[in-house]
């Protein structure tokens, strides 16, 4: 009897666990599902009752409308890609370089400089939008990728994160060996440190890539030339000008969602582990 009761209580708890997980997973997926399904329906049919729940036949037509209204759509995807890749490369290189110096070198004021670096992580970036915009236009960097790539040199979290990893995970003997083998200071960094820091760099790369790929507010203010729009800016403009053509809007949204869907399907485990570890390490 007692055994039976324990058993049914455990079964009941498992039921609740799965119910919670399945309901929340379902609620998470449904909007994505409908995004893709509705992209294949004519705008007029989307508002019909009952609404379509399965793939329709208007995908190509909606796509043509999208390209007609937003001729620079693919260019805007490319622009987002350039910003994502560029800012990620710069972030990795300079974060590892600074992190390496803090992890493996002794120099005057090292402690104080590291404290400054940690403090900078507390400053909210939003405060700077207006002055940042003015500064960028003074540099002549409007309608350019530079405002979204160059500042990645000064990534406080990235430098901190790489320092922690290099200090703990890359053995000192390797540096000594590299030095005996005649690698210069930069050679040691480039040939020994960077490859060995790859696991930490991976998590940093994903964060940076997602940030760059989704960049919106900055490009919205600085890119006035439609051929320099990032894809969120292109979609936001499309919504503003042709907001009633839901079908075309959803084709654009679906195309822009695909890369993230692919990332999630093929790499979510390591990415999530890396990102949560990264996020919580700052604490």
């Amino acid at each position: 009897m007692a055994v039976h009761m324990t058993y049914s209580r455990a079964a009941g708890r498992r039921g609740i666990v799965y119910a919670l997980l399945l309901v929340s997973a379902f609620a998470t997926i449904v909007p994505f599902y409908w995004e893709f399904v509705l992209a294949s329906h004519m705008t007029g049919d989307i508002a019909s009752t009952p609404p379509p729940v399965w793939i329709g036949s208007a995908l190509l037509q909606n796509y043509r409308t999208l390209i007609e209204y937003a001729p620079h759509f693919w260019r805007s995807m490319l622009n987002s890609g350039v910003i994502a890749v560029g800012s990620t490369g710069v972030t990795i290189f300079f974060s590892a370089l600074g992190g390496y110096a803090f992890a493996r070198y002794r120099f005057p004021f090292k402690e104080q400089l590291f404290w400054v670096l940690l403090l900078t992580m507390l400053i909210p970036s939003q405060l700077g939008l207006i002055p940042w915009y003015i500064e960028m236009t003074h540099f002549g960097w409007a309608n350019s990728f530079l405002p979204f790539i160059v500042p990645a040199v000064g990534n406080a979290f990235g430098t901190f994160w790489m320092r922690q990893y290099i200090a703990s995970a890359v053995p000192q003997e390797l540096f000594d060996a590299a030095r005996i083998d005649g690698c210069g200071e930069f050679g040691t960094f480039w040939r020994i440190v960077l490859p060995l820091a790859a696991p930490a760099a991976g998590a940093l790369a994903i964060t940076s890539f997602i940030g760059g790929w989704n960049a919106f507010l900055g490009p919205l203010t600085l890119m006035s030339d439609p051929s320099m729009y990032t894809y969120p800016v292109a979609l936001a403009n499309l919504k503003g000008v042709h907001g009633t053509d839901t079908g075309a809007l959803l084709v654009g949204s679906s195309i822009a969602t695909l890369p993230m869907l692919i990332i999630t399907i093929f790499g979510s485990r390591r990415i999530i582990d890396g990102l949560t570890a990264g996020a919580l390490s700052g604490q």
Partner: protein
Amino acid sequence: MSVASTALLSGFRGRIQSRRVGQSTRRALWAYLFISPFYISFLVFGVFPIVFSFYLALTRWTPYQSTFIGAANFVNLLQDNLVHTALFNSLWLMVVIGGAQISLALVIALALNARKVRGREAFRGIFFLPYITSPVVLGLVWGVLFAYTGLLNYGLSRIGIEPVDWLGYASGSSTWIKPAIALVTVWQFFGWNVLLFAAGLQAIPSEIFEAARIDGATDWDVLVRITLPLLKRVSFFVVSITIIGSIQLFDAPLMLLGGVAGAGSGTLGGAESGGLTLAMVVYETAFSYGQFGYAAAISVLMFGVLVVLTAVNRRVFFRNLED
């Protein structure tokens, strides 16, 4: 041992020492070279804009001229109804989003971390997807779902609930705009909070739970006395990012309520400005009306709100100094 050889030895020693000094100076210079890009970039792109924004806030700054006007912007701020509405909206959204998102995420994280859950990786992947998807895209998609004749209302009608005018387009009323924004935001970020809490739960050694169970602790005891206190640091982090994220909400409400075309038309933020956030006012003031000084003043207000809320949050979590 002759005097000569002693002299030779000490000479060697001197050379070795001076070489060492030279080498360590040289290495320190390399270190400075390696860290200097960070500090230079941070000064140019981080410190300067912030210092400059405090100056801007005291000026009437248009793209053509700037005049120092002291605290006038802040005096205007106190009388600006649009700013008051936006501040109220942002705080409302922060409280509702924070409360819903964090409690939901905690429950789901406990479920995800239950023993022997099948398909854990698939669930994690699903919860992760909205977090990395562009809020602009999600705002667009949810705008369609929220339409008066849209899918959400259709679903509600099937369970006998009257259609809701989510975005206020049908009635011109702002009643449901903030709940709609909160719903999208919670939907987008609760999964990431689940993953953070789950990572925090993973870090708790299982022996602690086993020991508690052997001592006869009930599930509720374990949750309240062990799990939650041990999740304190993660919770603090989650609350912090929720505060920062919801005060700065911009993309999703903008897209739900009409995209960039709303800017400059005085209709930004939807019916009765029900969905107007502080970040939207900053954007509109600067880029539709060209009042950069006033926009900077609103940013400073936003910054002040964030500083206060962050301090309160720290105080609530770490009242006891032992942490």
